[in-house]
């Protein structure tokens, strides 16, 4: 892939990833964030974070299924944007929703499993974001870095669980995310099993 293509793709990710934030800011500007703006903004930021996280998790399955390598070059950017939206989502909860009412928030984190898993997902993403630079990858070494970054699977599962758990059972949206995540992780799992079987075959033969 030429440098120019790669730059174009990355600019594309920047634009697409910043549209949801721009829409919220524009909505704030023209006072069109529904009559319950804090709830709306929290929900939109959370959904955007999940979408970007799933997008970053789609790179490997696309390579497995179609041999595409260019999505892999966007994975880090998508992951960092997902983390960015998770932080905004969390920040809105702290500042706008509860206005630094630490006692209530601590109670919620401890008492409500869906908040517990949400906060856990956020915490799991922190080391991943911190070690996302090329320098950190070199310093850690590829094997250790990859092992650490498998935490993203756990974070994604917890993120989707957070949404399923907080929403009314009759709503379909959380299950759409759950299905997509299951497909993305399923493709990886199938590929890993296939490779494992291939590696073992000569031993068995």
């Amino acid at each position, binding site marked *: 892939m030429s440098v120019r293509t790669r730059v174009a793709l990355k600019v594309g990710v920047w634009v697409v990833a910043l549209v949801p934030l721009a829409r919220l800011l524009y909505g704030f500007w023209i*006072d069109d964030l529904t*009559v*319950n703006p804090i709830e709306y903004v929290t929900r939109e930021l959370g959904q955007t974070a999940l979408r970007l996280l799933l997008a970053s998790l789609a790179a490997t399955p696309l390579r497995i299924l179609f041999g595409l390598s260019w999505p892999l070059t966007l994975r880090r950017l998508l992951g960092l944007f997902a983390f960015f939206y998770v932080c905004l989502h969390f920040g809105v909860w702290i500042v706008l929703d509860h206005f630094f009412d630490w006692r209530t928030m601590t109670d919620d984190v401890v008492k409500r499993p869906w908040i517990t898993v949400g906060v856990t997902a956020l915490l799991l993403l922190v080391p991943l974001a911190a070690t996302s630079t090329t320098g950190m990858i070199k310093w850690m070494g590829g094997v250790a870095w990859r092992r650490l970054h498998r935490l993203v699977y756990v974070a994604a599962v917890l993120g989707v669980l957070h949404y399923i758990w907080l929403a009314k059972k009759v709503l379909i949206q959380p299950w759409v995310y759950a299905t997509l995540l299951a497909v993305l992780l399923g493709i990886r799992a199938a590929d890993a099993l296939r490779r494992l079987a291939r590696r073992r075959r000569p031993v068995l033969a």
Partner: protein
Amino acid sequence: MTLRYSDVTPERLYLSRRELMAGAAALAIVGCDASTDATAAAPTGAPLKATTNPAYRVADPLTKVEAATTYNNFYEFGTNKDDPARLAGTLKPRPWHVQVDGLCAKPRTFDIEEILKLAPLEERIYVLRCVEAWSMVIPWIGYPLAALLKQVEPRPGAKYVEFTTLKDPEQFPAQKPSFLGFGSLDWPYSEGLRLDEALHPLTLLTVGMYGQVLPNQNGAPVRIVVPWKYGFKSAKSIVRIRLTDAEPKTAWNKAAPQEYGFYSNVNPSVDHPRWSQATERRIGEFRRRPTLMFNGYAEQVASLYAGMDLKKNY
């Protein structure tokens, strides 16, 4: 700062273009007979006269009418808050009948026009507290449900009242079969009260709000409002009221029994399994405010639950 119609015009006088035309149509039907109650045959959004009942008011300012009519939970139209306002045009609030039957001496069906005239219409300002921890202050128009129930003469065996919302997928699009049943409750929506709750003077048979005929998205043409209970207890677009000796099954209780009990009294000390009910966000305000026991109506209704464990009977 941008000015809106509602900023410069008192809410009472504010009519959207469509509402204005609907009101004009109603006037045209009535013609020049000025003595006729012009509101009786009026469609959604037309002005509705009522006498303010000063006994039922709230110190807090009213929620903006635009908010109360565009941010609704009415799953018959869809699960998004703006679905009811967007899609409510399919509901036909006329002609409309309400069957009142069950354990009573004189079961009968009431025409909506008759319901409008059964008792003097009062305007009462109540706080509406949604189970989702937001609230509004709404001027409702109606009269105590007791006035209607009196008409059918409940039998001594009657202990509960069941309310049934219209079931008609043509008028309520979200009642059509959905993918794996998502977004769907067990239609028709049904709710229930104990008879003493239903006869309580606060329980309002409601036909209007903000000086107008009840908008479709708020449960036209007739709903109940039970201000000390979470909003979903106040059934909308009612077609049947049944007196019974057994606790009626209720829609949300069937969907999620651990989350929505039969009583569902507003209670800051009994959490919803997924969130605290100790605070609420008043629509239009920034900071959460504390939720009051029985939504601030404890003085009037606490005696109904004397000796009951309200944690168990959530």
